[in-house]
């Protein structure tokens, strides 16, 4: 039988995997951007200890390979008494790992913000969290959106590694179909196609936000 026909027969498994990939990567992206803001704020803060601690976290994550990181979250944490399902371990690993990358790129955008914009905020009586939330973050977001999109694509690809901890995402589904029926190419080409659709959607989203941002630059 034609490989693609077999894949089509098993489309439900493939779509279920795709749905998992979408859910995992989008929630990981959203959560890591939100928490990345806090880490970026810590990186930019004036204290002695806080920025170093945050920097240590960011550089550690940048040095650790995601596959092994996910492995340790899933298999290592239980020995420390914390047991999570495969799905929540996967999400936790993706999130913890990408908070660091998001924080680093938000920091770059933050540093690139004209100091006068922030100063104007201070001069008008903004301070602390209000200053960050109302004056700093919106333009930081607008300028960081392309990089956030880029990193979200990386998250999508990292999510493929979660197959090792049994998360039934897209690569998992494709592998499962290929080894059951011996149709490697049809199943991988189908997977790439679905990945590509997801990445294109992300790129289009970035372009749309970029459009909004353009009016304000």
């Amino acid at each position, binding site marked *: 039988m034609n490989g693609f026909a077999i894949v089509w027969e098993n489309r439900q498994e493939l779509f279920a995997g795709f749905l998992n990939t979408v859910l995992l990567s989008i929630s990981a992206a959203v959560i890591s951007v939100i928490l990345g803001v806090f880490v970026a704020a810590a990186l930019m803060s004036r204290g002695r200890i806080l920025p170093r601690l945050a920097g240590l976290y960011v550089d550690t994550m940048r040095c650790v390979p995601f596959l092994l990181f996910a492995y340790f979250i899933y298999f290592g944490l239980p020995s420390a008494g914390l047991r999570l399902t495969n799905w929540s371990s996967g999400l936790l690993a993706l999130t913890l790992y990408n908070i660091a990358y998001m924080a680093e790129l938000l920091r770059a955008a933050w540093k690139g913000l004209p100091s006068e914009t922030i100063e104007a905020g201070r001069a008008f009586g903004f301070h602390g969290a209000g200053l960050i939330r109302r004056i700093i973050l919106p333009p930081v977001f607008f300028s960081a959106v392309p990089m956030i999109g880029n990193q979200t694509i990386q998250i999508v690809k990292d999510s493929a590694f979660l197959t090792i901890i049994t998360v039934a995402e897209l690569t998992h589904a494709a592998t499962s179909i290929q*080894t059951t029926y011996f149709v490697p190419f049809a199943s991988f080409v189908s997977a790439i196609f679905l990945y590509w659709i997801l990445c294109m959607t992300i790129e289009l989203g970035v372009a749309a936000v970029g459009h909004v941002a353009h009016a304000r630059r």
Partner: protein
Amino acid sequence: NDLDAVKAAGTLNVATEDDFHPFEFVEDGKPTGYDTELLALVTADAPFKVNQQIMPWAGILPGVTTGKYDMAVTAVLVTDERKTTLDFAGPVAESTTYYMTKVGNDAIKSASDLNGKTVGIQAGSAMLTQFKAFDEKLKADGGTGVKEIVEYQSYPEAYQDLAIGRTDAVINTQINLQAVANEKSDVFAVGEAVSDPVYIAWATAKGNEKLVEFMNGKLMEARKDGKMYELQKKWFGTTFESMPEAIK
């Protein structure tokens, strides 16, 4: 002409998995295990050299179906689905699918106790297909069926999860499970069969009749002079002497 091509090239390209203990695995950087030693045995006086590529299971299938490798010299379980896309040489082992639990798990005393339990199996494997059939049987017998089947890319992770307690049982061939349980007798214990016996054989892409024929001959020789059974004894602790001559 497939065999002729191999002879003309002077090399038989085979692919062998690297983490399926005791059938095939890597020790000190060298491939070893039952299939590897059997391959060396049957090709000792062959009219070609053997080029053995060691790689993960996920890479072997594409390699064989595209003809990059002439044969998968690795433990492939023979199933009906696979027979439609692959040809098999004569059987090299017999396998029955079993479950394995943690030592002292009193909740699972027999195969029917798997009702309502969580089990781990390799994704896309023949064992998975067999176990799904077994699950249907459990339900047909009035049980609830298993609670969940967790699919792993490879078995080390499945054993790890069993040890941690995320799953109640792992499903695999008896040979594999026995090897694990021997190695870690304080952790794991092999339970009962959950399938009828099936054969394990080396696979080629469709259209390699002559190569299959050649291998069948060599394998039969190894059975006749008892060398194959010696290897089975060495690696599995048992022998399979009533296997057919060829896979039909």
